[in-house]
């Protein structure tokens, strides 16, 4: 590369006097500030999205510093028009750093190797920043005494570092948010490049082409600043108690994940689906009472439950050979398959070779299914609207009856028998209306409250005996016994049967939960 252009003579001095020299020193200040900001953004993002902030910050700082070292080492191979290199790299730092946060947010849900992209960004920024300081010193080598040069450059470098580390947590994250901060500092880098481009007459030959790139980038970044809301909906921060670390609208629903020091929460259309702190209670109660009676279970069907947490519990039984998981939303299942932080929650259950994920509508799918299952787990969202209400209808349960083994068991998540008392018993009665024997039970999940399930069988008599897998945190035979008791405030009450052409359950649910709606 370097031989294309004439090497600058040994005695080369930057033109334009004191003001120009000062401008170059100032640009080091900006680069240092921006560089550290990008590093902090990466660290923060990584701890939002991947958790474990200590590991994230120390690996990112390590990679960043190491990459700066590589940049510094590599700088000796850059020759020719040094000012051109300097400006070129300045622009690149702006582009790479500026789009780092938006790109990282965007790829979070899709890329299995999110970490790799993260470290690539950090490394690239580090290399570029690492190149800049040696280049600058070489540019100014004949303008200053060596001792002054070293002193000036490093003073501004470190002051920039301090400034960045103070304004980042105090001003930038709370007021601008990560994406805007990233774009803003990208703009700052590029503005410096533009300034240098027009300040030095040595830059005349490449001024025009670089200006075009700079202006283009500025326009895109400004657009990014304006639309940052859309990239990551910060307004959601107001709706949710905790920090929103992920949000996405799929064709079917809005998925939001929030995080605080203790737990991670998943919301679908604003409704809490689980909290990582106590979901084990919900999922253990969903699976183990039925499974303890099913040593013969080979084929299991899970409807809903795209988070893979119910499947995690099922995989504790070696006798199960295949688990079909039917969840409408590929956005959910792929998130819980590919994202490391979430896959850790479900113990990588959705990647198990026993598990087959089918993204389709459960009702149409089940009408065409002819497999027999020993266990069917029905873990749909609450019947809050007519589309979901159909999945609690007698017509749907007739299909479940058809595909369930004579000695099989099905379990239906059945909303809260305390708040949604009529809804709960309506589900029980609807299941009974198609010929099932029902066994309603409930348990306490702190983040949900009192929660209900209905276990159903055909001819088989369920008993609270059988072996439970080792290592359960909540369910024991004693817990199960307790779950079966309904105190008077949750006791059975008469309801109609939920049918496709009356959808009474949606009406019950609305009136049961109405007083609790915010």
């Amino acid at each position, binding site marked *: 590369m370097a031989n294309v252009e004439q090497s600058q003579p040994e005695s080369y001095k930057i033109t334009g006097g004191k003001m120009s020299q000062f401008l170059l020193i100032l640009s080091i200040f900006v680069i240092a500030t921006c560089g550290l900001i990008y590093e902090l953004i990466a660290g923060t993002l990584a701890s939002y999205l991947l958790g474990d902030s200590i590991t994230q910050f120390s690996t990112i700082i390590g990679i960043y510093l190491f990459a700066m070292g590589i940049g510094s080492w590599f700088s000796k191979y850059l020759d020719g028009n040094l000012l051109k290199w300097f400006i070129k790299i300045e622009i690149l730092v702006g582009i790479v750093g500026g*789009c780092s946060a*938006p*790109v990282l*947010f*965007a790829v979070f849900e899709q890329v299995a190797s999110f970490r790799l992209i993260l470290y690539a960004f950090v490394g690239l920024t580090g290399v570029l920043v690492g190149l800049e300081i040696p280049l600058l010193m070489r540019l100014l080598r004949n303008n200053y005494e060596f001792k002054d040069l070293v002193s000036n450059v490093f003073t501004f470098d470190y002051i920039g570092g301090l400034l960045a580390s103070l304004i980042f947590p105090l001003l930038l994250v709370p007021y601008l948010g990560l994406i805007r901060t990233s774009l803003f500092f990208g703009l700052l880098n590029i503005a410096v490049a533009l300034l240098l481009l027009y300040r030095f007459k040595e830059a005349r030959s490449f001024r025009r082409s670089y200006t075009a790139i700079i*202006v*283009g*980038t500025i*326009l*895109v970044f400004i*657009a*990014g600043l304006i*639309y940052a809301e*859309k*990239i*990551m909906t910060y307004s959601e921060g107001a709706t949710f108690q905790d920090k929103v670390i992920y949000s*996405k*609208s799929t*064709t*079917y629903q*809005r998925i939001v994940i929030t995080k605080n020091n203790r737990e991670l929460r998943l919301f679908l*259309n604003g409704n809490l689906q689980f909290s990582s702190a106590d979901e084990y209670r919900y999922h253990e109660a969903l699976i183990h009472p039925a499974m303890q009676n099913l040593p013969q279970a080979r084929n299991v069907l899970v409807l809903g439950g795209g988070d893979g947490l119910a499947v995690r519990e099922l995989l504790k039984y070696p006798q199960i050979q295949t688990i079909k998981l039917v969840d*409408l939303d590929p956005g959910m299942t792929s998130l819980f398959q590919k994202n490391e932080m979430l896959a850790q929650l479900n113990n990588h259950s959705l990647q198990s070779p026993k598990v087959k994920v089918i993204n389709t*509508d459960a*009702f*149409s799918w089940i*009408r065409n299914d002819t497999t027999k299952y020993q266990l069917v787990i029905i873990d749909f969202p609450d019947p809050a*609207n*007519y*589309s979901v*209400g*159909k999945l609690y*209808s*007698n*017509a749907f349960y007739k299909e479940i009856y058809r595909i369930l083994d004579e000695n099989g068991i099905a379990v239906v998540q059945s909303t809260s028998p305390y708040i949604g008392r009529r809804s709960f018993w309506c589900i029980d009665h609807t299941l009974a209306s198609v010929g099932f024997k029902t066994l309603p039970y409930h348990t306490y999940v702190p983040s949900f409250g009192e929660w209900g399930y209905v276990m159903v069988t055909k001819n088989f008599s369920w008993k609270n005996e059988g072996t439970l897998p080792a290592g359960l945190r909540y369910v024991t035979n004693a817990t199960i016994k307790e779950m079966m008791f309904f105190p008077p405030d949750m006791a059975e009450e008469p309801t109609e049967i939920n*049918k*496709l*052409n*009356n*959808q009474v359950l*949606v009406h019950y649910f609305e009136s049961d939960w109405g007083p609790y709606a915010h």
Partner: protein
Amino acid sequence: MHTKTTYDRRLFLKGLLGGPAVLLLGTQAACKPADALAHITGSIVGANFKTGHLARNADALPKPSKTIATDVLIVGGGISGLSAKRWLEKEGHRNVLLLEMDDHVGGNSHYGKNEVSAYPWGAHYLPVPDVRNKELLDFLRQAGVITGYSETGLPVYNEYYLCHDPEERLFINGLWQEGIVPEAGVPEQEKEQFRRFSKVVNDYKAAIGTDGKDAFAIPVDHSSADAAYRELDKISFKDYLAREGYTSPYLLWYLEYGCKDDYGANLATTSAWAGLHYFAARKGTAANGNSSTVITWPNGNGFLMDHLKKQVEGSGMLTNQLVFKIAMAGNSTEVTVYDVPRKESYTVTAGKVIMCTPQFVNQHLLGSLAAPAALYKDFRYSPWVIANITINNLPQHRGLPLCWDNVIYGTKSVGYVDANHQDLKMDTRRVLTFYLPLAFDEPDMARKSARDKDHRYWLELIAAELEYAHPGITPFIEHADVWIWGHGMIAPGPGFIWGESRRKAGESIDNKIFFAHTDLSGISIFEEAFNQGIKAARQAMT
């Protein structure tokens, strides 16, 4: 249902990283007033005027080059034609030929299909029928619509086919209310008139004439001859309502909606008897339904039509065959037919002919055998425009979410039906079937002017109505096909149902030519068509 406008973050980022050119283009586009409908694809489909009109100029068609013989020839493959063929074959008559002018059978029960849903191009539901209608119940049992009978003998309907909840809503005074009877924002005095009307209708529903027959029945011809009720046919529904002191604008809107929905007509052009029949004749019972229960499918009555077709299509059924001349020839009837794709004509010699074609067509086909022209003048047909609209989102005002039937108060159309309602998939992409009767002009004028309009004209009209109830829907409309039914259905004007013309037009000619069509019932519904076919086939065989 929360229908929020969502923004695809990835899409945006593609733009963000795509460079400044995108942005520049964007600003340029924003400066120009854009055509809000430009992205919507679709065309005017169906409505085979051309083949039909060939018959008017029969002399220009080729001379017949061969002759075939059949015991029974059925002309027209709508529901009455299919029903006649079904009955004949059920009774063991094998030598039956059905000829249909269009490239498909099914008539008003025709339907279409795209990757989102099947959708009706006409009739789209069947109320749970009266259990006395045995023939229809048998057919529904064969089609799997009735799955069995309860211990008390009532039919049990397939729950997948009973219209799912939520069934109907009306957009009125800024709210989507449940049900189509206006309630939201209706003043108390007007509600009183609703109650009064409802009582009258319930009395009529239970009323039995001096001859022991129901005052209002389906099929129409099973209704009582008692003059106390038939008198009502002599005046318009509008005059009847004025006479009875109904003044509520909300009630009058609602009753006119009924006339539009069932007859494509308005209060002035519907007889009071027909207007009341809409409310007083549905007497269906079921183990799992009542008289207001309806059965429906994504493809509308296309479901029933397909089952009829399946029973009879084994042999003796041809489409694209234009019958253009009918003449007596000794003991049989000679029917001349033009084979549209082959561009050749042939003659069918038939022992009996069952004309399952509307009377405005028969008038031309029968030539000298036709009744006096004055008789046919009494048969008035409503033109209809039906659009099937594919949408990928449905923004809407507050109130009940999307239902099966969705009516918008005070608009020209009778609303739209969600074709996807009965399929159990959850999808934001849907097909809405939009029904627009052209009930406000003289039918002939309306028909002619409808034919001159282009796709864009209908699209603008439909989009404007939808925008009123669903502000911001236009960008979410992907596709809209429009079908124009020039003679959509018979309109039972004052004096028609119990008048002479209807009776005379249905009389067989020389025990050789028989007639079956809903225009001979005066009411265009599946039950009538089904019955017309059976009645004519029976006559032909006795």
